């Protein structure tokens, strides 16, 4: 299937590794991506706070351009872009007045957009639910065996409600990474916020949040944290040194994109996957992987006295 592709501003600078590996992985999986011509910024979380109607119009321009290219689904690898595209499309459908206002604004640029005509999708959603985690794992040539990877979804994978995964305990990335052969612990902060723009306006709070996230991953023996959003990557990676000096800690936790890890497992060369863009070096993690041999997980013995554990609710529940 052909998808419109919305790289988002960070693709051009801070997250070019994500953009590059997204395209490589998509090609390997047979997803046809066509970049939206002359797309503009989605406004991130900033525009909505200042002026809401221009914020809607800003995002709607991208949807209108995607529609003009003849695609009905647009893939965004960045979670914030994904949420903005989805939110604008849905709100325009829910509120007729908003729809007509936004279209009136678009008309000033000779554009128009019909709500519902272009569906926004996160890259992770398309890979796990359209291609399918099973299909991906069948394509794995070099399993990530021996690596413990912590899946970190950030806020926007399940939120706001109506996304493609559980709001509180999403599973797609867990399934994907397991399918790649990695050991994936249950990381309870998987959908906690990375602090977003707080790193810039309230550093103290942000560093505390980031420390909690990395600390739990380290306790779980993670070789790396795997993310699906440039903002999460930026905060966890770029601020890691600063938080180490602030708290006197010594974390060296590589923060990698899930597309990078997929590309590795699909047999692409690590040297081409821009791991060097991370401020925290991914080298030790890659070396460990190359040295590792798949060994069976030791099973914990249960005490005889232990009470039965309830079965998890499969598939999650969104209310």
């Amino acid at each position, binding site marked *: 299937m052909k998808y419109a592709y919305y790289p988002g501003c960070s693709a*051009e600078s801070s997250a070019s590794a994500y953009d590059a590996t997204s395209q490589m992985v998509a090609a390997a999986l047979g997803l046809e991506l066509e970049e939206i011509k002359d797309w503009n910024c989605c406004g991130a979380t900033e525009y909505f706070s200042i002026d809401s109607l221009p914020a809607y119009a800003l995002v709607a321009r991208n949807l209108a351009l995607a529609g003009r290219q003849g695609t009905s689904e647009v893939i965004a690898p960045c979670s914030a872009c994904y949420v903005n595209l989805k939110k604008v499309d849905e709100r325009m459908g829910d509120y007729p007045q908003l729809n007509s206002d936004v279209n009136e604004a678009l008309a000033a640029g000779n554009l128009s957009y019909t709500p519902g005509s272009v569906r926004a999708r996160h890259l992770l959603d398309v890979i796990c639910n359209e291609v399918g985690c099973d299909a991906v794992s069948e394509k794995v040539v070099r399993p990530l065996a021996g690596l413990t990877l912590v899946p970190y979804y950030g806020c926007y994978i399940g939120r706001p409600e109506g996304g493609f995964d559980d709001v509180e305990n999403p599973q797609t990335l867990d399934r994907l990474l397991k399918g790649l052969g990695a050991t994936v612990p249950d990381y309870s902060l998987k959908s906690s916020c990375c602090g977003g723009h707080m790193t810039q306006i309230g550093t103290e709070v942000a560093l505390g949040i980031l420390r909690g996230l990395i600390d739990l991953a380290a306790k779980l023996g993670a070789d790396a944290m795997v993310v699906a959003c440039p903002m999460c990557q930026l905060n966890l990676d770029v601020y890691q*040194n600063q938080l180490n000096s602030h708290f006197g800690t010594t974390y060296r936790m590589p923060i990698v994109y899930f597309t990078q890890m997929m590309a590795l497992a699909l047999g692409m060369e690590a040297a081409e996957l821009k791991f060097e863009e991370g401020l925290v070096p991914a080298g030790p993690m890659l070396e460990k992987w190359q040295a590792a041999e798949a060994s069976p997980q030791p099973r914990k013995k249960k005490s005889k006295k232990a009470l039965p554990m309830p079965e998890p609710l499969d598939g999650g529940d969104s209310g």
Partner: protein
Amino acid sequence: MTLNPNSVYGRIISELHGGEKLRSCLQCGMCGGSCPSGPDMDHTPRKLFAMIAAGQDDEVLRSNTFWYCVSCYLCTVRCPQEIPITDIMYHLKHQAIQAGLYTTDAVDFSETFIGHVENYGRAFEFGLATQFYLAHHPLGGLKMGPMALAMLSRGRLNLRPTRIKAVRQLRNILNKAKEIGARG
């Protein structure tokens, strides 16, 4: 209850899609307990809602609560009354700017960001960092120096912004939207 349409409460209800749900707040504290930046807010969202209901508009708009909101939507998805809390935070920022009542850097951060978007059509991380920090945290900016350098050396910061081709078209759309927004 009849609300003063110009009060903070009245404006949330009349101007914000879904804002009327604020009336059904139970004051349970789910939002305040869930917020990642909660520890640093001068009032938790829950308390802010009580203050809004009590008509303490000036104090509400001077609060740092909504500026510390990171838009993670956790409060929104957990609220047992389905109040669109994140959107209310956006709206409070909007009201605070209009009233000229804000004390944080966040608004300048947002405005710098938007300035770039309006001028170039794309965000400009390097420009954002330099302009924002030079204006507000000259010393903090220095502290950020090594980090920016590290990013530059890894090709993760562009020194020049990318400009989209149809900047004129985008500006026309945004100006029109502002015009429509202003007429209410």
